[in-house]
């Protein structure tokens, strides 16, 4: 056996190293229950380590596709880029989590938080780089299972428990179906290696078509596409805000990317079929989520529906499975991540400082906290796709990709839906700027970590679009994944 092939897995290994270091740090620094000091140390370690690991991944990026373990593990430069994007998101989540972690009841558990989060991240890494359905399945579960623990992180909170229960039950249900679908694939193909499967796929084989649907439903659950999305709102609302933020971008983004890869790699002969499926799923996702979002009052629940509709846009990039679509999707993911995490960071800090979570609580927010509401506005505008913020570019590019793939009417429906989404994003803007409140959220100052996180988000929102280098950077790696 050639052990050097482990080096091809440097992304995963380096993340594992980070995990181990943090584990050790947690073990040795946080030992005593009375000590509160080490808490700072942990986040101080986690963030730079993750950043270093990101840089390491990008620098060490293979020039071309690499494999390990007989194609069980596949990696391409684009995948490393996606992982790096996820890392950046995780860093922002860690930054915003700090204020929450520093609460008394959480201090003892914070090691768990970082580790669980990083384990889900590791799961996503494997999922992204999988070359075999087993690897994919393990990665998927590795991403799901710790996530449940994260959702249920606030043990004493009934909502958190309920959210976790719904999450795990739906997750199990969907993985049951997914697993069955994979078994059907195995039965019809005789192999589960991605590289070998396309050759034996047949669009007229209804068993395989059923398996395709089961696969899409399983992964659609993770991306929270309609009709596999119903857990989303409840879980987002019940989960701790930080975790919701993580859930809404990182796991969703990873899953969307994986779906793209597997659809184009494995189900390539069925492109017509899955285009049809995605066509309707996207329409329904965007529309239903938008309609639900319109009347939400809890801001986390609201963001859940927003996230569902954004997922619809994200998946639009997968239509037709083009290289342009891939770039657009990764770029969209990046931009969406920055903006969405910015919003969640603010929701989080507001919740931590004032305990308020309703949109109506944000009335008059601008008067008391102008800077925060300004950044919130930028992020919301970016989510709505308003130039010159990055969201405009990402939306434009993803629609362009969809159009090019030959789905102008899908693009049109999506475009019309952006109007509805603009409406509800503006509702928050309206609450912050226009409405007056007798009991506004008091003026407060956020902690340094959140500030750094918000600064990152704001910079990303403003510059990720205008500076075309980012898109071009992504684009330069869009080779090697398409058949």
């Amino acid at each position, binding site marked *: 056996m050639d052990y050097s092939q482990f080096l091809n897995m440097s992304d995963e290994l380096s993340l594992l190293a980070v995990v181990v270091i943090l584990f050790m740090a947690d073990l040795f620094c946080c030992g005593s229950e009375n000590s509160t000091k080490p808490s700072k140390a942990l986040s101080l370690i986690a963030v730079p380590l993750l950043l270093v690991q990101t840089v390491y991944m990008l620098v060490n990026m293979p020039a071309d596709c690499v494999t390990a373990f007989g194609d069980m593990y596949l990696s391409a430069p684009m995948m490393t880029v996606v992982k790096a994007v996820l890392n950046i998101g995780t860093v922002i989540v860690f930054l915003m989590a700090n204020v929450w972690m520093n609460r008394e009841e959480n201090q003892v558990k914070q090691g768990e938080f970082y580790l669980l989060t990083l384990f889900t991240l590791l799961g996503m890494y494997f999922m992204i780089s999988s070359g075999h359905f087993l690897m994919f399945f393990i990665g998927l579960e590795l991403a799901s299972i710790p996530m449940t623990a994260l959702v249920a992180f606030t043990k004493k909170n009934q909502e958190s428990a309920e959210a976790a229960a719904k999450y795990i039950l739906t997750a199990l249900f969907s993985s049951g179906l997914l697993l069955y679908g994979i078994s059907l694939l195995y039965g019809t193909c005789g192999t589960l290696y991605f590289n070998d499967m396309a050759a034996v796929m047949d669009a007229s084989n209804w068993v395989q078509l059923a398996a395709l649907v089961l696969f899409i439903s399983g992964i659609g659950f993770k991306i929270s596409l309609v009709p596999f999305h119903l857990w989303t709102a409840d879980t987002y609302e019940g989960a701790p805000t930080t975790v919701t933020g993580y859930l809404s971008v990182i796991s969703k983004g990873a899953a969307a990317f994986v779906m793209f890869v597997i659809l184009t790699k494995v189900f390539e002969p069925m492109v017509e079929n899955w285009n049809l499926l995605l066509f309707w799923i996207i329409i329904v996702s965007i529309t239903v989520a938008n309609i639900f979002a319109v009347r939400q009052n809890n801001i986390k629940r609201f963001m859940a529906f927003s996230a569902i509709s954004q997922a619809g846009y994200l998946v639009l990039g997968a239509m037709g499975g083009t290289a*342009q679509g891939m*770039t657009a999707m990764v770029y969209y993911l990046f931009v969406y991540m920055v903006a969405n995490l910015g919003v969640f960071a603010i929701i989080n800090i507001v919740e931590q400082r004032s305990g308020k979570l309703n949109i109506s609580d944000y009335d008059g927010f601008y008067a008391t906290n102008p800077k925060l509401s300004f950044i919130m506005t930028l992020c919301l*505008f970016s989510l709505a796709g*308003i*130039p*010159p913020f990055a969201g*405009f570019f990402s939306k*434009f*590019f993803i*629609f*362009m990709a969809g*159009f*090019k793939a030959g789905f*102008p009417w899908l*693009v*049109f429906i999506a*475009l*019309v839906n*952006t*109007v509805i989404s*603009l*409406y509800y994003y*503006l509702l928050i*803007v*309206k609450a912050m*700027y*226009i409405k007056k409140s007798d009991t506004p959220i008091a003026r407060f100052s956020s902690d340094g970590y959140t500030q750094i996180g918000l600064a990152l988000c704001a910079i990303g929102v403003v510059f990720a679009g205008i500076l*075309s280098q980012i*898109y*071009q950077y992504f*684009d330069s790696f869009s080779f090697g994944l398409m058949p």
Partner: protein
Amino acid sequence: MNFLSLFVLIPLLMLLSLWLVKGTKGIRAVMVVGSSALLALSIYLTFAFLAERAAGNTAEMLYTASFTWFEPLHISYSVGVDGISVAMLLLSGVIVFTGTFVSWDMCKEYFLWFTLLSMGVFGFFISIDLFMMFMFYEIALIPMYLLIGVWGSGHKEYSAMKLTLMLMGASAFLMLGIFGIFYGAGGQTFNLLDIASHTGGATLIEFSQQCIWFPFVFVGFGVLGAMFPFHTWSPDGHASAPTAVSMLHAGVLMKLGGYGCFRVAIYLLPDAANELSWIFLILTGTGVVYGALSACVQTDLKYLNAYSSVSHCGMVLFAILMLTSTASTGAILQMLSHGLMTALFFAVIGMIYHRAHTRDIRELNGLMRIIPFLSVGFAIAGLANLGLPGLSGFVAEMTIFVGAFQNADLFHRVLTIAACTSIVVAAVYILRMVGKILYGTNVNPDHAKLHDAHWEERLAIIVLIACIAGIGLAPSWLSNMIDASVSPVMEQIQAVASTVSKSNPFL
């Protein structure tokens, strides 16, 4: 660096300095310097452009520059101007300049959004890349929400939301149309000139494709140009917006619509324009009369003016669709003229509202005696609106009518004559308004002691009146400048689409 980019750069710098400065004085200083610089730049551009043309440079666009932006998607940062854009830039310069003075007492945030809006407008007019154009178009739209929502009056939240959503809805149509054009022309370039002239990798867009995308683009821009029946954002929006925002919106932003219709819909899709113009002619022709008649029974000054804008802007689109070079030149002149006079109108209405706290025609009376300066400004705006010779409206309307009359068939004739009636109706509503609020005797004791315009307001009004009269008295240089850019497009249409529209049931 192309000097046209200064039109975007100056607002950017203004934004930056607004962010940094403190205190009212600092903000005003930044705004005055910035907007004067923009005005000066647009005037300089006009002279430079005319000089260049006089020197025999007949290129379609002057001062073009192009930098690749998103290389994989063929998106470039491309700028360039022709006679039409120069005219529009000049208009924008004037309106932004006067708008600054009109909103003298506003706070920093207001000016931030205001400047962002200006940036969008200027950017739009210098762009010759479809992507850039679309981007600036949207940049110009969104600040409206906050400007109206926060600093507006009346049903401001509703109006702001409606305006934003309708315009964004339009941009959905527009974006699809842009994709259609881009891919229809081969998906190699977003550059307008290349697409129009089939160079730079662009190919001729198939006729069937054109017919699909033309309505999208035209509606997309048409909504912003207050095309019937997509105009209802305009009365509410204008009524609720703060003074300078109404000015900027009616004065410049609505021109984005007309300009876009010409520059994108007609210019890039000439065959479809020829084929399908009849549908939109009916709509816009209806809008012209409908807006004017609706204006007659309004009681809120701003609503009245907004409906009058619907009528006048309808005339712009109407003229463009006549597809003759005179009518299109008239359309651009009408854009200029309407921009200036509506800005003046809204400015004065805003000032009156600021003082009297009402815009209801029935509650205002005899203002001529109380605030003569504002009243005279108002009357002049009104006279310009109804097309008094010597003011800009006359020039524009006559050019449009003469141009529209070049289509000899009954269908165009009937519509043209119907549109002509709007000038009579305009006289009705303008005189009704002027008669009711300026003339007569004031009976409201609260209004007896209103103070007349401040110096900054006077400055704004005088500048606008001077521009209106300037165009009205000496239009030919402008008209020639515009036509030099319009007529190649129209010749192209007449050359490629000499056939009569087959789908028009009225022919």
